[in-house]
């Protein structure tokens, strides 16, 4: 069974806060839910399916259903880090296609800034029972040094340069200048990126995403429900998911799970990369974008440096506009999980509601991709292809 044409994205919301000193975690989830439901023209009472991941407080779906007073007949708490919410859209479409729910709500929220969390630069301990923990944690693996390891290998194998990676941040900053909510709105140059301090060689400070509080939500509905609402419909056309891991130690650092999730999503949609007018690519770090674009087939393996350079990712300038909200690199990375906002900006593009300075002309097909976990060692990959209702 395919999900193509079986579900629509009827509402989206990106919480405007970037530092939530005064709000609780559950409150941020619920405020985001209210925003997306209001965008769709629905209410909490319409929701019969709920999706959340590891950022949800307490017992996840149970705690949030309790807080929001939801009456559910379908719940899914698939956890693949920051890619979870991209997977959730596909899972929501599947649940709707199978008749398990009619209105699915997906929420994300977090307060890493308010809590003073050392997000990317302190070793992350997933607990002694994590089977790989004893073999890595004593050496201090951080998020940034694990991504840096993949970047270093890509540079060694394919000749990718720091200047090429810097173009990804430059493009994001060009877009963020038009987003009043973006944490970083200043346009930066390649020189400024490569001259910013090294955090984990070869990644500089400006190769890293922002740390923000906030959240977001998505409402996925049965097409008949979406047609009864006033907002422009966005159809779910294809979804793919994959886990990339260390393969018993025989790991290749130069590719991601997108080599599997991408073709799955394109096959389901009946489309090719050349059909896509806009891409939202998870940008925890610049290298994440470069490797993902290669793996999704937007260029040959190893040619990502050339693809992203010279403004090619800038809306109105290049041939592959990406992350027109400023992405995680400049705008927002709520809860250290960037997948949900990737879907939100893709929906804005398909509705023609992106900022006029970055709106892609005739944007009928868009792709959102999430990468959650560590690029080098283990992560979840999720690819989602969406279309305007006339596409």
């Amino acid at each position, binding site marked *: 069974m395919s999900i193509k044409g079986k579900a629509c994205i009827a509402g989206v919301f990106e919480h405007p806060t970037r530092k939530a000193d005064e709000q609780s975690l559950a409150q941020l989830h619920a405020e985001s839910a209210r925003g997306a439901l209001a965008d769709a023209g629905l209410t909490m009472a319409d929701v019969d399916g709920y999706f959340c991941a590891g950022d949800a407080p307490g017992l996840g779906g149970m705690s949030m259903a309790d807080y929001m007073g939801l009456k559910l007949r379908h719940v899914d708490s698939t956890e693949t880090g920051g890619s979870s919410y991209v997977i959730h859209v596909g899972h929501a479409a599947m649940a709707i296609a199978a008749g398990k729910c009619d209105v699915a709500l997906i929420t994300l929220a977090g307060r890493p800034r308010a809590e003073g969390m050392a997000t990317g630069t302190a070793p992350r301990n997933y607990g002694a029972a994590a089977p790989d923990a004893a073999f890595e944690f004593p050496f201090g693996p951080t998020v940034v040094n694990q991504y840096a390891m993949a970047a270093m290998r890509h540079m060694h194998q394919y000749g990718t340069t720091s200047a090429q990676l810097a173009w990804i941040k430059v493009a994001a900053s060009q877009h963020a200048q038009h987003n009043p909510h973006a944490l970083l709105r200043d346009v930066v140059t390649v020189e400024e990126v490569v001259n910013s301090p090294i955090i984990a060689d070869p990644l500089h400070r400006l190769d890293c995403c922002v740390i923000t509080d906030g959240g977001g939500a998505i409402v996925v509905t049965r097409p008949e429900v979406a047609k009864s609402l006033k907002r422009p419909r966005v159809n779910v056309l294809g979804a793919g998911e994959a886990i990339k891991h260390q393969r*018993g130690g025989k790991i290749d650092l130069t590719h991601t799970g997108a080599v599997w999730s991408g073709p799955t999503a394109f096959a389901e949609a009946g489309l090719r990369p050349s059909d896509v007018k806009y891409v939202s690519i998870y940008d925890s770090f610049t290298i994440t974008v470069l490797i993902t674009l290669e793996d999704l087939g937007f260029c040959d393996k190893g040619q990502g440096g050339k693809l992203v350079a010279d403004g090619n990712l800038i809306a109105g300038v290049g041939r592959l506009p990406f992350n027109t909200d400023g992405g995680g690199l400049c705008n927002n990375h709520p809860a250290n999980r960037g997948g949900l906002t990737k879907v939100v900006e893709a929906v804005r593009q398909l509705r023609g509601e992106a900022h006029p300075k970055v709106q892609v002309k005739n944007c009928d097909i868009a792709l959102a991709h999430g990468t959650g976990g560590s690029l080098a060692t283990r992560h979840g990959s999720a690819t989602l292809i969406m279309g305007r209702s006339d596409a």
Partner: protein
Amino acid sequence: MSPTERTIPGPSVNPETKPFWDAAAAGKLLVKRCTACGERHHYPRAICPFCGSDRTE
């Protein structure tokens, strides 16, 4: 942080990985091999990540 300030905490050991760490303490690096499929793997597991067999040594 200078290298001299850095302390590396000891690993958490469980029954599945104890032979590896005991050997490491004796200066020996062990790599597990599956006698069913012949593949080597690391970190050490009781169940082979390549074929699912429990015949690992």
